[in-house]
C-alpha cells in the first residue's frame, strides 16, 4: 500500500464582510464573558505602583545602606561599647612578674629581711609601722 499522507486542515472560521469573524451566539457570548472576567481580575489584582529607574537607583542605594552600612555601624557601635565597659587593666609590673611567687602576706623590705605580717601581733605591727615612719629614707616594699 502506498504511503499517501493527507493533511487535514482545521475547519476554516466563518467570516463576514470585512474579514471579521462571524461568531455564533454562544461563542460571541463567551468572548464577552472573557473580556468581562479580564476586567474583573484586573480590578481585583491591580498592578503595583511602578518605580522609575531613578527611584529604583534611589531604592538600591537605600537597600545598600540598610544591608551593608547599617550592620557595619551596629558592629562598630557594639565594639566601642564593649571596649568602654571593659575594666581598666592594671599595668603589669614586669619586675614583680619576674620575681618568684611568694606567700600573699609576706613582706619583703629587703632581700634577707623578710617579715611575715601574718605572724605579727597588733602591737608588733604598730611598732613596725612606727619604725617605717621614723626612717623614711629606707626603701621598703610590700609583696602580696
Amino acid at each position, binding site marked *: 500500500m502506498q504511503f499517501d499522507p493527507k493533511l487535514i486542515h482545521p475547519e476554516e472560521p466563518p467570516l463576514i464582510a470585512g*474579514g471579521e469573524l462571524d461568531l455564533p451566539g454562544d461563542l460571541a457570548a463567551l468572548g464577552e464573558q*472573557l473580556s468581562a472576567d479580564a476586567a474583573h481580575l484586573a480590578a*481585583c489584582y491591580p498592578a503595583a505602583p511602578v518605580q522609575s529607574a531613578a527611584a529604583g537607583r534611589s531604592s538600591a542605594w537605600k537597600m545598600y545602606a540598610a544591608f551593608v552600612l547599617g550592620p557595619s555601624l551596629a558592629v562598630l557601635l557594639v565594639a566601642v561599647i564593649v571596649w568602654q565597659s571593659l575594666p581598666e587593666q592594671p599595668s603589669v609590673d614586669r619586675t614583680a612578674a619576674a620575681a618568684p611567687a611568694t606567700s600573699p602576706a609576706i613582706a619583703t623590705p629587703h632581700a634577707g629581711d623578710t617579715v611575715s605580717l601574718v605572724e605579727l601581733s597588733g602591737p608588733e605591727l604598730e611598732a613596725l609601722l612606727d619604725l617605717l615612719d621614723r626612717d623614711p629614707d629606707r626603701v621598703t616594699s610590700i609583696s602580696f
Partner: protein
Amino acid sequence: MRLDIDQTTQEHFARIHRAALVLCGNPWDADDLAQETFLVLAGQGGAFQGRSSIYTWLYGILLNLDRRERRRYGMRRRKLRVIWDSQPTTSATSPGANAAAEVAEWKKSLWARVANLPDGQRQALVLRFSEGLRYEEIAEILECPLGTVKSRIFHGLGALRRLLDEEGEESRQLPAFPSEDLSHAV
C-alpha cells in the same frame, strides 16, 4: 530610536500586568512576569526599531517569557495543578495573606479554563478578549498570518465551549449536596 524606559514603563505597565494576570492565573506570578518584561525592555530597548507600536513589542516579549516559563516549569506546574485541583476554593493555596480569596477569584473566571488550551489559542484569546487588540496586531505579535489568528480565536472559543460543557455534565453527575431521603424520619 531611543526609548524613554521610565515613561514607557509608566504608560504600559498596567496593561502588561493585566495580560500577565490572565496568562499566569495568579497575581504573584503575574507581578514577576510583568516586571521581567520591563527588565527585558530595559536591556534590549535599543533594539526597538519603531516599525511597530511599543505595546505590541512589549506583548511579544511577554508572550515569549510566558512560553519560556511554561516550558521550564512544565513539570512544576503539572504538580501544582494536582494540588490546585485537589483543594477547595476556600483553602489557602498560596503564600499571600488573602490567598484563598485570590485563588478563588481566578478559579471562578473563564480564564482558568483558557489556561488548559494550547499555547496558540490561549495567547490569541488573551490578546483579543483581554487586551482588545485588532487581528492585525495579534498577527504581528504572534508572527503568524491573519487567517491563522482568526482560526485560533474561533477554535479556541469552540474548545472553551466544549470544556465548559464537559464541566457542566460532570457537575450534573456529581451533585454537590445530594438530596437526603428523610421519609424514614417521619
